[in-house]
């Protein structure tokens, strides 16, 4: 196992685009090479060492035994872990938008809050957000057909708007509440919301949404199918969204 620790020393408010911070990219690079990687700060290019202090321990044989630890409040560092295929990233504080987007494998743990579009178009791997999450977690890009299609995202806090928008595979678990329209336009995969949800499942055509708390403002275009038992708990099952053709989405709401 090779552990690469990035100590954030940048505290500006202009976001840094850091899609190069992945186990894939770091795997075969020396400490010095990692320090020389290019990041983007506004309209200028900076070296990674200008933003982070780098320390490296141990050695690796491939991508899977690379672990990157990001220390400090990375709330202005975007695109960490983008497209990664293996290995591990631990973000000890918050993280900015698009963390783990297009991720294919490996694991990202965010101890703080994650901003919007975390896990956008994710294909595989796992993201754990221990704090709250922003909008469009596990969603698709503007206009694209699909969002997240595989892998798993766990949010221990609350999720923002449009959770799992256009999702067609994989799994999202929210321990607390989800804001409006979780599972918007989803066509596959599974979203479990342990707290409350507002208007879940708008325009969904497939997949499962399970709400264990209360549903606020349930959409009128869902059809009640009956009771169903999941893990020893009673749920009311709906199919929808019947504003869509060929809609086969399942919405389970915990029975009172």
């Amino acid at each position: 196992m090779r552990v690469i620790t990035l100590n954030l020393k940048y505290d500006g408010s202009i976001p840094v685009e850091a899609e190069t911070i992945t186990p894939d990219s770091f795997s075969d690079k020396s400490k010095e090479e990692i320090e020389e990687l290019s990041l983007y700060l506004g309209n200028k290019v900076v070296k990674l060492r200008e933003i982070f202090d780098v320390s490296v321990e141990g050695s690796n044989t491939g991508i899977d035994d690379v672990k990157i630890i990001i220390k400090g409040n990375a709330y202005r560092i975007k695109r960490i872990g983008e497209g990664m295929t293996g290995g591990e990233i631990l973000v000890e504080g918050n993280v900015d938008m698009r963390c783990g987007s297009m991720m294919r494998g490996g694991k990202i743990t965010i101890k703080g809050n994650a901003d919007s579009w975390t896990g956008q178009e994710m294909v595989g791997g796992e993201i754990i957000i221990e704090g709250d999450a922003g909008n469009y977690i596990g969603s698709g890009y503007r206009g694209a057909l699909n969002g997240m299609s595989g892998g798993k995202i766990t949010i221990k806090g609350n999720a923002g708007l449009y959770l799992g928008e256009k999702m067609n595979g994989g799994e999202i678990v929210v321990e607390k509440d989800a804001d409006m329209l979780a599972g918007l336009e989803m066509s596959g995969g599974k979203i479990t919301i342990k707290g409350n949800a507002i208007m879940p499942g708008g325009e969904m055509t497939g997949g499962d949404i399970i709400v264990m708390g209360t549903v606020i403002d349930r959409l009128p275009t869902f059809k009640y199918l009956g009771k169903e038992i999941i893990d020893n708990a009673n749920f009311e099952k709906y199919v929808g969204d019947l504003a869509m053709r060929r809609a086969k989405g399942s919405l389970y709401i915990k029975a009172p």
Partner: protein
Amino acid sequence: MNELIIKNGIVFDPLNNIKDEKKDICIRDGKIVDDVKNPKILDVNGLLVFPGGVDGHSHIAGAKVNSGRLIRPEDGRRSLKPKTSITMPSSGYSVKNVFSEGYDYSIMGYTTVVEPAMPPLSAIHTHEELRDIPMLDKLSLTLFGFNWFVMGYVSRGEIDKLAAYVAWMLKRTRGYGIKIVNPGGGENWKWGKNVDSLDDQVIHFGVTPREILNDLMKVNEILDLPHPIHVHTNKLGQPGNYNITVDTMKLASGFETQRGREPLHITHVMFSSYGGENWKTFDSKADEIAREVNSNKFITVDVGQLMFGDTTTMTADGYLEFNLQKLTGFKWSNSDTELETGGGVTPVIYSPTVPVNVIQWAIGLEAALLINDPYQVWLTTDHPNGAPLTRYPEIISLLMSKEKREKEILQVNNAVNKRAILPSLDREYEWNEIAIITRAAQANSYQLRDKGHLGIGADADVTIFDIKPNEIDPSKDYDKVEKAFSAAKYTIKGGEIVVKDGQIVKVVSGKTYWTNAEFDEYYELIEDDLKDWFANYYTVNLDNYGVNDVYLTNPCMIRTNPTIGSRVRLA
């Protein structure tokens, strides 16, 4: 004096009957000349030399194209390229931004491109985009196929007025020729309907597609327009439409023209060569279409080749786009334009595992392979409808190699063996034929005298491909062919080297051609109608309608010789 000599190239220049000849090409001040005194020397040492490419049908500018870009940010994101010290940022795979359109064409060796569908009411928009497309000379065709004035004059048999109106519109929109999309049917679509045959009535207007086509073909001749009427057939995209396509082609039989050009061009013929009664019985009728073309010297077609992958469809045929959207469930835009035209846009994914798509793919290639005279069949993808423009190199390699086709056929759905004839076709295109279908035929059909050839006096638009035609066998080395056509060794535009080794090295802006076919008193003939209809039915004032030269880069006016009754061309 700016001189250049291209030495030792293997030149194919079909319009001048030069074929596979080691020949030097001399250039002075943007033109091909017979000799030069003190030129810069470009020794290309046995490489393939063609005239600059001409694409006669490619949706690159205007409201529809921009609507495609607007609704497809996910396509825009696919090919983002940063600016360089000389180029601007690029975006888009099937719907590219204006810069990318110019650069991508130029990199493949194209120097002239036709935007084939300009709605008159938004002609300014088309020209604003054309102005911003770098690297290329451009022309655009004005839409007339279900225009109210046209249908009115046709229904009343007022051919003089129709001619006057077309001449006025071409001038007012800075258009090059007559485009007809789904004649008459487009008006019916404005009530959610369509036409089914050449003799169906247009709702309210009492005319038929046949009458519209016939009269516009006559007007095209009366006005001495350089290009044939450019027709997107009725029922395009529907199973079993080959009949109406053949019927449409027959309208041109025996129609002699003064210019010696054909009177009728059928565009993206792939979409109009369908058999079967529905999508389940869908099959290729490319053989029927080719039979008609081979026996009818009065028509040309372009292929409209489909390639597998994701693209965006767009046309003035709103009915077609709506129906396509019903099949896919994808997003859909429509843009009916008052009194004139319409249009639609929807994305599509052509899959090699879907029988219909595989047959469509085969039909295009079959049409190209079965039509004997390459001057009658230009290569297009109807960009971006069949495929994005960047797929041309792949298509060229397919036309040149049966082996490559066999390899592809093994990869696609078996329907290609049952409901298409591609597997049985042995023909392989030669270099000279490729030069015809990508250059000479199109320049000829548009009668662009300075384009598509390398004779003395031609514009010095030249492409040099990084391939030695005498050292490779394109039927075996198809990968090399594809690679060479993807990135020109040199593209020379107006005498300047604009692409080197597949990279843009100089950014230039091209010319815009348009046709002035006005004749004595032409405006008086239609003035009252224009004033009346603009006042009552348009929402834009006649005075504020149309385009002026402010919107054109290097406008290039083509004068014609109308012969209409006693009236003559204006001095």
